């Protein structure tokens, strides 16, 4: 299926950009007329994926983060977050709730948040070359909801 709209941005892995990424995705999603609840699901999920790039992918340097958004006629919103950082050696283990390689400030729940607030989460990663996380969320039209 061809997307009805798409957008791509790139920004450095500075923590100030976590908020920016959330706003960009919210603004893009507005094209599908989401409910406040749907937006409130999307924002933490995007925040988790972007924060992971900043904290884990580039632990000692500032690297590039790619954000690609696509929307489809059937209401699917697809958000792809890419980094070219350290990668994840074992994705399944990384996605286990409470698993973290971060310090004591990290809960190990980023992937759990993504999974509980999105319809689908896909992770592709290779140690040493980077990670791509794709979040899919169906924005159900308000019209059908109200009928």
């Amino acid at each position, binding site marked *: 299926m061809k997307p009805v709209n798409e957008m791509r941005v790139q920004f450095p892995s500075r923590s100030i950009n976590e908020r920016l990424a959330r706003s960009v995705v919210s603004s893009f999603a507005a094209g599908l007329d989401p409910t406040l609840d749907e937006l409130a699901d999307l924002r*933490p999920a995007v925040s988790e994926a972007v924060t992971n790039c900043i904290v884990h992918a580039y632990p000692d340097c500032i690297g590039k983060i790619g954000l690609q958004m696509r929307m489809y006629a059937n209401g699917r919103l697809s958000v792809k977050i890419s980094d070219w950082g350290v990668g994840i050696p074992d994705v399944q283990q990384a996605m286990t*709730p409470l698993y973290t390689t971060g310090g004591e*400030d990290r809960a190990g*729940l980023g992937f759990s948040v993504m999974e509980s607030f999105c319809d689908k989460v896909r992770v592709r990663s290779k140690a040493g070359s980077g990670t791509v996380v794709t979040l899919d969320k169906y924005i159900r039209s308000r019209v059908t909801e109200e009928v």
Partner: protein
Amino acid sequence: MEIKSWLEDDTLTVCITGEIDHHSAAGWRTSIDREAVCAHPAVLVMDFSGVTFMDSSGIGLVMGRYRLVRSWEGELLLTGLSDRLRKMMTLAGLDRLPVWGKKGEKKYETC
């Protein structure tokens, strides 16, 4: 980071406002710990009624403060949680800790 807080009897209440993400969490942690370490309260109340956004960094913030107050056998209470924040805290299994409910949220004045 300025944080609104007050100590009453043995209870320290801290009010978190705005967004809690990885960017802002370090500031909240420093401010809360400054007050808590100084007061060593029997109960630390974290008031979330002014929070407009939170991701797992907020859960990390709560878990870390829980460990801190436990180091002097204190208690942690969370108040002012919206349904959404409560759902997020439940993901972390925080509902299995005695951090809310039991003492009743109403007993504590919110920000």
